[in-house]
Every structure is written in structure tokens, then in C-alpha cells.
């Protein structure tokens, strides 16, 4: 339980930030306590720790001031941007939150295809500006409302366009990083005057390697105030859309091709993905299943129930379906890409559907996913408004995803659905995408849970899935895992030491960067 902030500390915050940019009002603090971001159902509660204060720093100097004051008064800190993730807010008492909203500048270097962004610039805002120049940022699967910087510096940042736009962690160029000790650590080319922001590695070793801990950087390793992110080609005019919600009315994208594809046989599906990746023709890819499609198509829970009962989507998409988008620079290129695409799909027994298969809605879902990643998040929330994942969330090969990770998560889900611990949406609600022309595949299996459901119990799915993954030797949370308890302890030791290096006063609210510190203090290792 947090103690109220001391008057002296509060006065110092006011002096550093201005009265309008700090609040200790209980009402304000409460609005930063509730969390229902992605994955929240796995945590099982909606009210996290109430912060002791919420600040709105607007510059590097103000961030440093917050850190300084926290260190002086023995407070913790955590920074967030759009905060749309289960552990984005305070996860310990006496935590000062830094809402990075005021830091929202964006500059685009068109020549060298990168953008320098501050934390509160959403991916959607970045995209609308970069498309004017024929460029596209990577959009994470969570959607355009997510911060671009956050996924680059603090999580992995995979999404449906990753087949072309990589995952955000790999798109990171130069970074301006305020360590918990308040120092400005610059990565890469920022270490040379007049060089610019184009490179994030070096000089010499790349400290990008120490930005994250066990599961990203949930505020543990500091505050990232600016980062440069790679941009990718977007062939054609900026995406245009008019109309009204929920489904709007997208203009056709010239020189492009958008389809749904279904395979009945998973082995053939895996083969197809391998070949499609190697063919280097995809610009968007995303797999989901009938349950997720129903979520995307319905606008209310009532409609969801109607659609589910009708069973139309289950009939076509019950075994999973893919959305593929090809965007080409010329008609010749498009012709080639389509030919290869159709060849691979046909040879692997896939069936191609027009995206209007279920009317205009299904087309809008496809095109808006392909360009804006809008509907993925919806499929994780509708109709229950909370979700978690049945691990493993693997990030290795297509074979591992299909043959090993998917079966584990399907089984775990089935067991939980049978006892109404989570929503029964057809068992298979597995999201997949291949990244970087098929060099990796990301798989995560959404489980939808309503927090009101008396039988709801999704946390077990995460734990069970994790246990089975480890049993079978698969990494379960966006990455590979250490092999043995000894290895786990060693990795944790290193992470703990790195964090101690960055955070000598121990002021970071470091939820996930040091999982074992509570168990084994660093000094004893």
C-alpha cells in the first residue's frame, strides 16, 4: 500500500514540472490504477497498485528531474506511453508514474527512411505522415493506437506487416535513453556529433542488447525519450478511407492484392507459409480463426451471439484462415507476385477467397488489418472485453509454431473451455504471422475471458501452457528460454546485474526484468 507522497517531494515535482504536470489527487491516481490492457485476464485483477503520483514530463530534463526526486525520497518510478498492456502501470507501491504524453514529437528522414519519434507518437499517427512520402512504419499487431517507440525499445513489436517491416525491436536505430540513475545514455550514431540518428549499434558493443530483461522492459531499465525507427516502402498513394464506424469505407489500393486463404491441412499450411516466405512476395500476413473473425465482424455482443449461432464463419474459417496482402511497385511486379502466390496456394491445397466473401465488412476488416492493424486488437477483446494468451507465444520457426506450439495451446485451451474457464470460440483462436520473409514465425493464442464470469480462470492456461512448453522444450513468451534451472538462474543473475548497473538507487518499478531477484538476491549468486 502506498503512503501519501511527502509534501517536500510534491513541492519538488511542482517546481520541476509545473503544477499542471503532476497530480496526487486520488481520482487521478485511480485512473492510473485500473488496467485492462492486452493480457490482463492472465493477471486476473483490474486494479493494480495505485501510484503515489502521476507526472507528465515534457523533456529529457524533466524526466531526469523526476528520477532525481524519486531517488531522493526513496520512491519508485515507471514510464508509459499509451499503456495498453497488462503490466504497463505501477506494479509496486510508492511508484511515481511518468505518463509520457507530452513527449510526442516526430521527425521523418525521407531520404534515409527512418523516423525519430518520442514516446507518445502512436503508430497510426506515424503512418499517416510517412505514407505521404511513400513510407510505412511497422505497426504492431495491437493496433495503430500503440506507441511506436515503446515496441521498439521495450517489447518485441511483431505484427502482421512484420513479413515486410520486421519486428520493431529490430527496427530500432539510435536511441536516447535516460537511465534510472538519470544519465542520458545515447546509443549508436548519437555518440558522434553531426552523425545523426541512423544507427543504434555501437560504438563497438551494441547496448541495444541490454535494453530488455526477462520480458521486455516494463519500466525496469529506464525511460526512452527518443528513438529512431526504420521505415519501409509503401508503394502507392497514402491509404484513403472515408465513411463511418465501425467498418468505414476504404479506397482500393492500387497495385495490390488482398485475399483470405484457407487450408484444411495444417501440414500443407505450414509448407505454404514456408514457400510464401521464401518467395519474398508478402507485405502483410496474419492467421486467425472463425472465433476471431466473428469478433471482428460483430459490433455488439448480441450480434456476436447471432453470428456464432448462424455458424457461417465457422464453416469456412473454422480451421483457421489467413489474410494476405501484396503491395507492388509496378504492374509487372504485382503480376509476378500474384502468380507465385496463387501457385503456392494451389499446390498446397489452399483455397483463396475474395475478401468480400462475407460482404463489405469482411473486406474492410481485411484491408484495414493489412494497412492499419486495426482489427487484431478487437479480435482479442470482443465479446468479453478481456483477454490473455494460451502460451506458448513462440517466436522461432514455422515448424515449431505449427507442429509444437500450436498443439500445446489448443490442448490447454480445450481443457479450459470445457470447464468454462474461458470463452468457447471454437478452440482455435490462434494468431500467427511470419516475419521477415518467413525467417521466423510468431504465434500467440488469444483466450477471451470476461472478468465477470464466475467460472473464469485464465491464469491457469498461461501457467499450464508454460509448463507444457518447457516440458517439450519450447520457449513460451516471445522468445527462447534458458534450458535448465541453472541457466535460468545465470541469466537472471546477468539481468539483475545489468539492472543494478543502470539503477544503482533501485528506483525502477521493475516488474519483469528481474524475475528471480525476489527469490535469490544478486549478491548470493
Amino acid at each position, binding site marked *: 500500500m502506498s503512503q501519501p507522497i511527502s509534501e517536500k517531494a510534491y513541492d519538488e515535482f511542482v517546481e520541476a514540472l509545473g503544477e499542471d504536470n503532476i497530480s496526487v489527487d486520488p481520482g487521478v491516481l485511480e485512473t492510473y490504477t485500473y488496467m485492462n490492457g492486452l493480457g490482463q485476464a492472465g493477471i486476473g485483477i483490474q486494479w493494480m497498485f495505485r501510484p503515489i503520483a502521476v507526472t507528465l514530463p515534457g523533456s529529457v530534463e524533466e524526466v531526469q528531474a523526476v528520477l532525481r526526486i524519486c531517488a531522493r525520497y526513496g520512491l519508485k518510478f515507471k514510464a508509459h506511453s499509451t499503456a495498453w498492456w497488462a503490466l504497463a502501470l505501477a506494479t509496486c507501491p510508492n511508484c511515481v508514474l511518468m505518463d509520457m504524453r507530452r513527449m510526442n514529437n516526430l521527425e521523418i528522414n525521407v531520404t534515409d527512411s527512418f523516423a525519430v519519434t518520442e514516446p507518445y507518437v502512436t503508430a497510426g499517427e506515424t503512418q499517416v505522415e510517412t505514407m505521404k512520402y511513400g513510407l510505412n512504419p511497422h505497426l504492431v499487431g495491437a493496433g495503430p493506437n500503440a506507441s511506436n517507440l515503446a515496441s521498439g525499445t521495450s517489447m518485441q513489436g511483431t505484427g502482421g506487416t512484420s513479413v515486410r517491416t520486421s519486428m520493431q525491436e529490430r527496427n530500432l536505430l539510435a536511441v536516447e535513453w535516460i537511465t534510472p540513475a538519470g544519465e542520458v545514455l*545515447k546509443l549508436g550514431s548519437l*555518440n558522434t556529433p553531426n552523425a545523426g540518428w541512423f544507427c543504434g549499434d555501437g560504438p563497438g558493443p551494441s547496448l541495444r542488447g541490454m535494453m530488455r530483461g526477462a520480458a521486455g522492459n516494463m519500466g525496469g531499465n529506464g525511460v526512452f525519450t527518443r528513438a529512431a525507427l526504420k521505415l519501409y516502402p509503401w508503394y502507392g498513394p497514402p491509404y484513403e478511407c472515408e465513411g463511418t464506424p465501425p467498418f468505414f469505407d476504404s479506397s482500393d489500393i492500387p497495385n495490390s492484392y488482398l485475399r483470405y486463404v484457407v487450408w484444411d491441412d495444417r501440414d500443407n499450411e505450414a509448407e505454404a507459409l514456408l514457400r510464401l516466405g521464401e518467395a519474398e512476395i508478402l507485405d502483410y500476413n496474419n492467421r486467425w480463426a472463425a472465433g476471431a473473425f466473428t469478433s471482428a465482424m460483430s459490433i455488439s455482443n448480441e450480434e456476436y451471439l447471432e453470428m456464432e449461432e448462424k455458424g457461417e464463419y465457422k464453416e469456412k474459417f473454422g480451421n483457421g484462415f489467413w489474410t494476405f496482402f501484396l503491395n507492388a511497385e509496378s504492374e509487372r511486379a504485382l503480376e509476378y507476385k500474384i502468380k507465385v502466390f496463387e501457385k503456392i496456394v494451389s499446390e498446397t491445397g489452399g483455397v483463396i477467397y475474395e475478401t468480400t466473401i462475407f460482404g463489405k465488412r469482411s473486406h474492410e476488416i481485411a484491408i484495414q488489418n493489412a494497412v492499419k492493424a486495426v482489427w487484431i486488437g478487437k479480435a482479442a477483446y470482443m465479446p468479453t472485453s478481456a483477454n490473455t494468451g494460451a502460451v506458448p507465444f513462440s517466436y522461432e520457426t514455422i515448424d515449431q509454431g505449427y507442429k509444437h506450439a500450436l498443439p500445446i495451446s489448443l490442448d490447454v485451451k480445450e481443457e479450459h473451455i470445457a470447464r468454462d474457464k474461458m470463452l468457447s470460440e471454437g478452440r482455435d483462436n490462434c494468431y500467427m504471422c511470419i516475419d521477415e520473409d518467413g525467417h521466423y514465425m510468431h504465434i500467440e493464442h488469444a483466450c477471451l475471458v470476461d472478468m465477470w464470469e464466475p467460472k473464469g480462470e485464465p491464469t491457469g492456461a498461461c501457467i499450464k501452457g508454460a509448463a507444457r512448453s518447457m516440458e517439450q522444450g519450447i520457449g513460451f513468451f516471445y522468445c527462447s528460454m534458458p534450458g535448465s534451472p541453472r541457466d535460468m538462474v545465470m541469466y537472471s543473475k546477468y539481468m539483475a546485474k545489468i539492472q543494478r548497473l543502470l539503477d544503482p538507487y533501485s528506483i525502477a518499478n521493475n516488474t519483469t526484468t528481474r524475475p528471480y531477484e525476489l527469490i535469490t538476491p544478486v549478491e548470493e549468486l
Partner: protein
Amino acid sequence: MIPKKNFKKIIGSKYVIDDPQQLQDYASDNSYVSSRRPELVVRPRKSEEIQEIVKLARQKNLKLVPVSSGPPRFRGDTVPATDGAVVVDLSRMNRINWINRRNRVAVVEPGVTFDQLQQELDKVGLRSMFPLLPRGNKSVVGAFMEREPFTVPKYAWDLGDPVASSELVLGDGYCMRTGGGAGPGKTLEDQRKVGGAQKSPLSPLTMDVRRIAQGSQGSYAICTWLSLRCELLPELEKVFFVGAENLDKLIEISYRLMYLRLPDEMYILNSLNFACLLEKNPSRISALQEKLPPWILVTSIGGYGELPAEQFNYKNADVQKEVEKWGMSLEEKIGGIRGSFYRDKVLRKTSEDPYWKTRFKGDCREVFFLTSLSRTPEFIETAQQAAYENGHDPASIGVYLQLVMQGTGCHCEFDLYTSLAKAPGMEGFFNDLSQRIFNLGGYYSRPYGVWSELVYPYSDTFVKYARGLKDIFDPGNVMNPGKLCFKEN
């Protein structure tokens, strides 16, 4: 006192070298890093042996300098910076552990060379990424652990590519695997049984020690294997040239073609470097140079995969069309050199002897850095000015421009050709040029030798944390001390 007996016990007497003449081979290289002879050279075969060596080094406060490529070396990173060093020559670790066509991956030990790797990859229709005509004895692991740029920029997603996973023996003796190789499967075979292929770049958990170790000149760890992303080998492949008097148009064309992701190989050379790649004799180099335009964009178009011919055709047509927009043309021949000849000599090849950078005058000093491609003319002008002012012939500077990170940056390289005799006297020019480049904003992402003295004074905070990591991963400071920003340790 170096405990030779202990080393012999670990790896066998045959592989512990204390012969002064052999030791002398490791004492210096073709850089301006001060010469220093190691006390011993050891040549392990397995990572377990390396772990033992590191443990021994920790016990006895020894300094280890990893070397994986054969001479001539040019960077100074493998020259000991302290007395009493033990060179760990990894060339015996020359196994290709695994090649997997399905997952487009190869797992190689440090002694594996590019030719060796590509020969095996040829059998399964894959290609490795290559730096520009590397030496025959250049280590693949050595190159990519030092973030050497490669010639197919569309596959250079991240500066650390094509590295996926790695195994690193850290300075504290712990053997860490990164990326997909981290586990949970204890052995790589265990991982492969469940579909793993050591491909994932991020791990263990989500920290990335491989990234920290890359570019560190062995200051944190010794790499015992890397898994490398490979790509499909083209069934159809043609090399084209665009020649120009002026670099500006080639820069614009490069940006545009990069944006369209059409070519495979793509880089810009000046006529001198182009000639050096293809001719071995100085007079023939000069003769070829005469026939060439000052600047040449070298590019290749490949057809591979499902419909190779069709892929080739559309890319070829689109590239031609793009180049024509600038009033230029894509040539199959330049200065009498056919694209097919260039392809056979350079693409995915290692340099025949003598190494191409020593052909013109016998020796070479490299100055390279990262910048934006659009800024390279400024740096080229600076190099020429610096040459003139230092009494070095500007016409003896080879230029190589290689887009990296899919065009976000550019490796800009000046090869200062000189004779073996005159090389020492060129140090002043080298230092002056290095300083000017730094002042202009050239980024030494790999700060070898004197470049570390330029970069690190401006990077106090970075240095603090790099040293902090050194204390974590190499608490005994056994790993190649005195390099980069670790000079005071």
C-alpha cells in the same frame, strides 16, 4: 608466467605454440595499432576447451585475444594490447555444424571460411551473405561478429545480420547461448526435435547478449558458433553496371532501387577499387581503370524460388526502367568487363591471392565508418582534400559504398593504398583523415585503433555502461583488454 602446461592439458601440446616466429605472426597486422607479441598461441577445437581456457585465464590473470581469420589482418583488434597475452586462435574450430535448407540457416564455427561455407550451401541451393570479396582465410564468424557489411543490402534488416543465434563463452567462463539457441532444449539437437533451428534473434528471455558481443572485438566473450540466416541461391543471376562521371546520380539510383527492393547485390565502387577486385597486377589495374568511368554502381538481379525466370524478368525490366529515369542505362559490360565475368570473380567469392586490397601497391590502410549515403560525397571530398594536404595521392584511394540496414545507413570505406615500405609513413595522413571524418559526422560504429580515441571521449555515459557490462561479463578482464573503451581497465 604463462602456465603452458595447463594449456597443454586442456588442448594437447601440439596446439600450444610458443615458437617466437609463429608468435610474431600475431604481433602486428596491416593497421597502425602498436605491435605486441603474444606470449602464447593456443588453438582449441571445442567450446568446452575454450571454457577451460577462460577459467584458467581467470585463475591466472591471463589476457586472451581471440583470432579466427588468417592474415593479412587489417583492423588491429587481434593484436594484443597488453604484454603476456595469449592468442586464442579459433581456426581449428572449422566445422559447419548444421545446414538446414528448410529454415535457411547454417550453424558455423569460427574457423569456417566463406568459401567453405558457400560450397556446402551450394549443395542445398542456399547462399550466405558475403562481405565484398573477403580473404580466403577470412572467418565467417569473425566477419559477422564484427558486423561486417555484406553486399546484398535487401537482406540487411538489422546491423547485426545475418547473425541469428550464437554461443558465447563469456569472460567469467560461462557458456551462454543466445537467440533461438538459448533453449529450452539443452542441446541444439533437442531444440531441432521441436522445430527449433536457432533462428530467433532475441533471447535468452528478451535480453540480447549477442548484440552486446557483436562489435566488441572479443572484449566480452569468445564466440564458438554462430547461426546465420541464409537466402535462396539464384538460379538465374546477372550482374549489371551503371557507370557515371558523377556520384550523385548513382546515389539517387541506389536509394531508389533499395526502396524498390529489386536488386540483390548492390554497391558503389570507384574505378580503382573496381579494378583491384578484378585484376591482380598494378599495371593491369591501372589499365583497367583507364577504361572505366570514375564511379560504378554494381548490381545483380536474381531469379530464384518458385518462378526464377519470371522473377528475373520482371526485376530486370523494372530496374532498367528505373535507371532510365535518370537518363542512365544498365550495362552488362563496363570497361570491357562483362557482368558474367564479374559475377564469377566476385559474387560469393573470396579473393584470390594476393588479397585484392594489397594488389595495387602492396599494402592498404582502411578507413571506414557509417553515414547516410547522401552524405558520402562530402566525405569523399574530405578524403581527397586530406590526401592532397598530406602528400598522399588522392588517386590511390579506393572507395566502396555499401548500403546497410536496407538503406538507412551506408558503410563508407576508403582504402588507402600504399606500399609496405611507405605504410608506416602514412600514419599521419591516416590519423588526419580519421579525425576529419569524425568532425564531419562519420560514425565509427566499429572503432578500431585510433578511432576509439576519437569516439569515446564524446561518449562518457556510453563508456560507463560498456565498462559496466565488461565488469559483469568479464569481471577478471581476461577478454582482449585494452580495446575499444576498455583501455584503462
